C-alpha cells in the first residue's frame, strides 16, 4: 500500500486556495456587466469548467493512442481518469451555460455547435463506460476503451465542424464572433484578471483531480489483484 505523496497534499491545498480566490475574483472583484447584469458572472467558471472538460478530452485521446502503442495498462488507468473528469466537467459547463443562456438567449438550450458538441462528448463518454462495463477481461477492456476514445476523439471535432456549417449564436468573447452571435461582450481589464485566473485555477484543479483519480485507479487495480491472489 503506497502512501499519499506529500506533493499531492500540497496540490490539494493550493487547489482549494485558488478556487476560493477565483470565486472571489468572479463574484466580487470583477465589475457587473452593463447589459446582462450579475448573470454574466457565470461566464468565468463556465469557460473554465469547459476548459477542464477539453483538457480531459485531449488527455483521454492521448492516453488511448499510448495504450494502443505500448499495451501498458498504466495508460488505461490514465485514460479512465481523463474520461471521467471530462464527463463531469463538461456536465458542469453545460449546466452553468444553461443558467446563463436562460435570461440572455431566452432559452435553456439551443443546438449550437458548442452546446451540441459538449452534449455529444457526454454521450460518447457515457457509451464508453457502458462498453467497459460489459467486458470482464481487463486487457480487452483497455483495448476496446482505447479504440472507442480514439473514434470519439476524431468524430467529435467533425461533429463540431459539421454543425458550424449552419449558423451559430454562441458568443465568442476571445477572437472574432460570427455576425449572429448573441450575448457577447468586451472584457474590461479586471474582468480579464478574473477570467484568466479562473482558467489558471481550474487547470490546477484539473491536475489535482487527475492525479487523485489515476492514483485511485492504481489502488483499485492493486485491490483487485490482491483479491484474485487470495482466491487461489
Amino acid at each position, binding site marked *: 500500500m503506497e502512501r499519499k505523496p506529500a506533493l499531492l497534499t500540497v496540490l490539494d491545498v493550493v487547489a482549494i486556495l485558488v478556487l476560493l480566490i477565483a470565486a472571489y475574483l468572479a463574484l466580487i472583484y470583477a465589475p457587473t456587466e452593463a447589459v446582462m447584469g450579475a448573470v454574466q458572472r457565470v461566464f468565468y467558471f463556465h469557460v473554465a469548467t469547459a476548459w477542464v472538460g477539453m483538457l480531459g478530452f485531449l488527455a483521454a485521446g492521448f492516453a488511448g493512442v499510448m495504450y*494502443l502503442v505500448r499495451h501498458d495498462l498504466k495508460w488505461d488507468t490514465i485514460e479512465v481518469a481523463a474520461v471521467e473528469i471530462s464527463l463531469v466537467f463538461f456536465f458542469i459547463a453545460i449546466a452553468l451555460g444553461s443558467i446563463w443562456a436562460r435570461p440572455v438567449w431566452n432559452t435553456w438550450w439551443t443546438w449550437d455547435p458548442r452546446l451540441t458538441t459538449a452534449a455529444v462528448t457526454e454521450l460518447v463518454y457515457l457509451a464508453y463506460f457502458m462498453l467497459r462495463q460489459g467486458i470482464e477481461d481487463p486487457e480487452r477492456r483497455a483495448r476496446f476503451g482505447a479504440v472507442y476514445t480514439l473514434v470519439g476523439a476524431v468524430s467529435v471535432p467533425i461533429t463540431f465542424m459539421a454543425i458550424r456549417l449552419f449558423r451559430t449564436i454562441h458568443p465568442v468573447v476571445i477572437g472574432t464572433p460570427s455576425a449572429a452571435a448573441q450575448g457577447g461582450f468586451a472584457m474590461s481589464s479586471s474582468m480579464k484578471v478574473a477570467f484568466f485566473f479562473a482558467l489558471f485555477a481550474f487547470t490546477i484543479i484539473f491536475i489535482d483531480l487527475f492525479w487523485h483519480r489515476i492514483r485511485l485507479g492504481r489502488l483499485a487495480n492493486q485491490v483487485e489483484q490482491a483479491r484474485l491472489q487470495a482466491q487461489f
Partner: protein
Amino acid sequence: MKRFLGTIWAVIWKDLAAEMRSRELLSAMLVFALLVILVFNFAMELDVATRRSVTAGVLWTTFFFAGTIGLNRSMAAEKDRGCLDGLLLAPVDRAAIYFGKMFGNLLFMLLVEVLILPIYSFLYNVNLFNGGLLLVILLGSLGYAAIGTLLASMSVQARTRDLLLPILLFPVLLPVVIGAVKASNGYLSGAEMSEILPFLNLLLVYDVIFISIAYMMFDYVIEE
C-alpha cells in the same frame, strides 16, 4: 493486392451465400424499415406540407435503424457459430476481413434502401429517383457501414452485445446524420449546388477518415 481483393470478395461471397440460403437478415431489415415508416406516418402526420420538410429525415432514420439490425446480426452470426475464429485462423490479412464484412454490410444496407425508395415514393407520391440523392445514399451508407462494422465487432464481444451497438454507434455517427439529411434535403428541395456541396464534402471526408481509422483499428478489436 490481387490476393487482398480475393479475400475481400471471399468474405462478401460467404455472407451473401449464407443470406441467400437463410434470407433472415434482409427480410428482417426490410420489414423493420417498413414498420419504421409506418410508425413515422402516424407519429408525425405526414401530410403534404410536413412531408416536404421531413422526407429526408424519415428516410435516414429508417435506414440507420434498419442498419443496426443488419450490423448486429452480421457480427453476431460470426461470433455465435465460431465463424470468427475460423476467419481469424485463415492465413489472410485481417484488414481484408474487415473490408469484406464492411462491404457485405454496405451491400445489405443498399439493397434495403433500393427497395425502400420506390415504396416510399409510391406511398407518399414523391419522386425520390434523383441522381444526387442516390449519391448521398451511397456516401452516407458507406460511412455508416465503415464505423458500424468496427463498433459491431467490439460490441459482440461485450456482455451486453446488441444492446450496446446503437449506444456506441449513434454519438459518433452524428456527422453522417447531419451530412446525409442536409444533402438529401437539398437535392429533394432542388437547392443550389453551392448549398449542398459542403454537406457532400462532409460525408466524403467522414468516409475517408473512418475507413482509415477502422482499417488501422480492426486488428486491435479482434486480437485474441
